[in-house]
């Protein structure tokens, strides 16, 4: 057998910190989320679809180069054709351009509303659940007053008081919606608050703000993302409903709600006037929903691999 000589041994550097060196590259929370999202084909597909939709809302109205505002009595109610890809509306205007113009307004309104709802709802719900006791009690009463009033009533009244405009619409739709988010966040955090790691953080002297931001919010993200995914379509629908009631945007504005509302009266006669705006709405909503689903899986820390 081979002889064991001293030369055959080599001294390996043995730093005592070596054990703690992380051999794999560090992946941040967000990096990991992105990596997992990329692996989800449905989510990537919907992300692509959404990007396409957004691009279309920017350039779509101008692709055909047709005037989609001026009334043209001669060409009214024409079916889809080479000239009008989606047909023309009851005033002879190109529906293709109008659909993308409408999608632009609807998406902007929905996204702004959702952002306001989530931000206000999180702050309110977080404070309420974290402090508990008298703070929770008082804030809950306020919430109760707002949520106990039928939201449609408040929205209608606000729209009646304010002049018709996009700003008024956003305000009227947000004025009650954040309550739902606040309530859900409170429910979720009430659960989390009892959990051990929050207790541990408290023992280590973390400030309340730090606990809310570092521990509670990330842990409620899945609920929030679900919230975003369902809020965006619901805002698009609320906008449409208000148009049906004559309380939405006025006739000078183009939105998916206005287009669908106009199309539904004549769906027996010119189904495409309802079909195309409704289809655009479905696709946008579908894309948001599927992406939301994918994001939820990707962001959930408990599903981290």
């Amino acid at each position, binding site marked *: 057998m081979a002889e064991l000589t001293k030369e055959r041994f080599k001294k390996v550097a043995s730093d005592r910190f070596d054990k703690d060196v992380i051999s794999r590259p560090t992946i941040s929370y967000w990096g990991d989320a992105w990596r997992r999202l990329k692996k989800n084909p449905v989510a990537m597909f919907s992300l692509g679809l959404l990007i396409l939709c957004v691009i279309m809302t920017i350039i779509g109205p101008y692709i055909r180069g047709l005037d989609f505002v001026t009334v043209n009595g001669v060409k009214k109610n024409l079916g889809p054709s080479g000239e009008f890809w989606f047909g023309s509306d009851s*005033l002879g205007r190109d529906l293709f351009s109008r659909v993308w113009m409408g999608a632009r307004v609807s998406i902007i309104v929905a996204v702004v509303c959702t952002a306001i709802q989530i931000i206000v709802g999180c702050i309110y719900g977080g404070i309420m659940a974290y402090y508990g006791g008298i703070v929770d009690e008082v804030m809950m009463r306020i919430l109760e007053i707002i949520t106990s009033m039928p939201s449609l009533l408040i929205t209608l009244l606000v729209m009646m008081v304010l002049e018709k405009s996009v700003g008024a619409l956003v305000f009227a739709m947000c004025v009650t919606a954040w309550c739902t988010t606040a309530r859900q966040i409170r429910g979720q955090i009430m659960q989390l608050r009892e959990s051990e790691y929050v207790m541990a953080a408290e023992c280590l002297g973390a400030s309340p703000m730090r606990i809310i931001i570092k521990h509670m919010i990330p842990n409620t993200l899945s609920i929030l993302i679900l919230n975003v995914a369902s809020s965006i379509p619901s805002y698009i629908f609320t906008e449409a409903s208000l148009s049906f009631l004559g309380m939405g945007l006025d006739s*000078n504005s183009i939105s998916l709600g206005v287009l669908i509302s106009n199309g539904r*009266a*004549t*769906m027996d006669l010119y189904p495409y006037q309802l079909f195309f705006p409704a289809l655009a709405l479905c696709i946008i909503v579908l894309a948001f929903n599927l992406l939301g689903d994918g994001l939820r899986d990707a962001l959930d820390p408990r599903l981290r691999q």
Partner: protein
Amino acid sequence: MKNMKKWLALFLAGTLTAGMLAGCGGSGDSGKSSSEGGASAAVSAGSGDTEEDDNTPDSVQELNLIFTDLKTLDVNDVRNSNEFQVLSQVQEGLFRTFTDEDGNAVVENAGCEDYTVSEDGLTYTFTLRDHQWSDGQPVTAQQYVDSIKRLLNPENAFAYAFLAYDIENAEAYYDGNASADDIGVKAIDDKTLEIKLQAAIPFFVKKLANVCFFPVRLDVIEAGGESFATDYTKQVYNGPFVIESRILDNEMVLAKNESYWDAENVQLEKVTLKVVAEAATQSQLLEAKEIDVVEAKTDYIQKWQSMVDQGTLVSRSVVKPASTYMIFNQHTGGSSGLMNNAKVRLAMSLAIDREELNEVIYSGQNTPAYGLIPYNMMSGDVEFRGEAEEPLKAVKEEYDTDEKLVELFTEGVEEEGKTLSDVELTILSSASDTQNESFLEYMRQTWESLFGVKVTVNICPDSATFVAERDSFKYDTYNMGWNGDYDDPMTFMELWNTESGYAKFMGGYSNAEFDEMFDSLALMTDTAERTEVYKEMEQNLVAENAGMAPLYYGNSQFFVQEYVKNLSTPNFGCALEFSRAYISGKE
């Protein structure tokens, strides 16, 4: 194509005019010719029978209609067409109007058997028919007297109180300058009613056909208490039908009134009226034969017309005594400060292509208007529009190019000390259905592109907001329609008099010459003379001062299931007179 439709409309208007002459012309003169009207209706019903032998009534006599629910069941308190529709079928006044096969009006005596007018045209004496209410009480002359006094009681604030102002001391009583006993109406005996007028009005009897003059039972009203006006169980009826059941804002069922004096001529056993909001749903129901009559919705005309061609529907056109126009804010000059300038108003009025508007927005359903008074309106014995050329047509020929219009507009703007580039016009509107929004968009683009000024449209979500905006004068112009209340141009002319209670809604038009002509009518009984004055007034309002801009005269088109026979569509009062209708051949 466009011309075809126009000719058709003119032709239609022409035939209906002739009908009015034959059917309605007599009623103003004496009771005798009015009963002749009754005879002609009998003839027309007979001719219907000989035409088709299979017109035998079905065993099931039920009619299904759509409606908007009534806000009140009180005849004195009628406000809108839906109330006229139902109340005229469950209650009865002095006359009832039918239409014959050709759509010509036939006025028949109902509550009255006969009437006479004194030499001076001031005293009307009605002999009432011997008939009764659904609770068995007789209908008496005193009930008519009670009705008129109740209508005029200022505490009740009834919308149509002004219709009775022709009666002696009526207006004075409403304003608190006379007592109820001074009103010129009295019951000579149970069956004789006498009405004295303030001044001889040739068309007074036409006004009396209005639902607000129907007899009332004070004992029933008192017993009914607070909910009398909405609770159908607290009503008594003297018309062809009674209300059998009602679900507020949803459904009303009428049943035949067995104690009606002419019950043998009422064949329908049940009439169901439903609230159906969506146009698409109405169309579904029409196809499924679940509703029998529907008023044309622009978008659906073509579809329903094809059903007419297949023979499942029958189309009925009615030339309504309705006029739609743009109001200009002459109270304050409007938010642009330009509306007190007649040149600006005229230029705006002439800028509208009324033919195109009617085709594009209303699918050619209405008649383009170049005047205020609609077709088919009688002034005495003549059809007014047949006598008077529409005033705006001549002016339009004068300003026949866009350049001339722009020049006129600019001139007006400069007279008001403004510059064209700073002008901003505001159109106010209340109803927000698609058609109206399309109309507003059309108007906005018309003015914006021709004059190069900014035009904003302010659509109020509901009429309450609209009224608030209007009453604070935050507008330059808005569109409004008016339905004539009785068959005389006066029903439109009186709106524009400075003293009129309506002046406020008509943009505050105020013109000394117009008022002078209006006042001169008060003592004028000769109808030919009146027609001449009406012509000049219309010229003054529409052309010389452009106090408003006419848009179109409204026509109604009804689509009726072919199995509904003998349905009347009078152009005043109710839209549908179905007391003699019957069902034949519905399976």
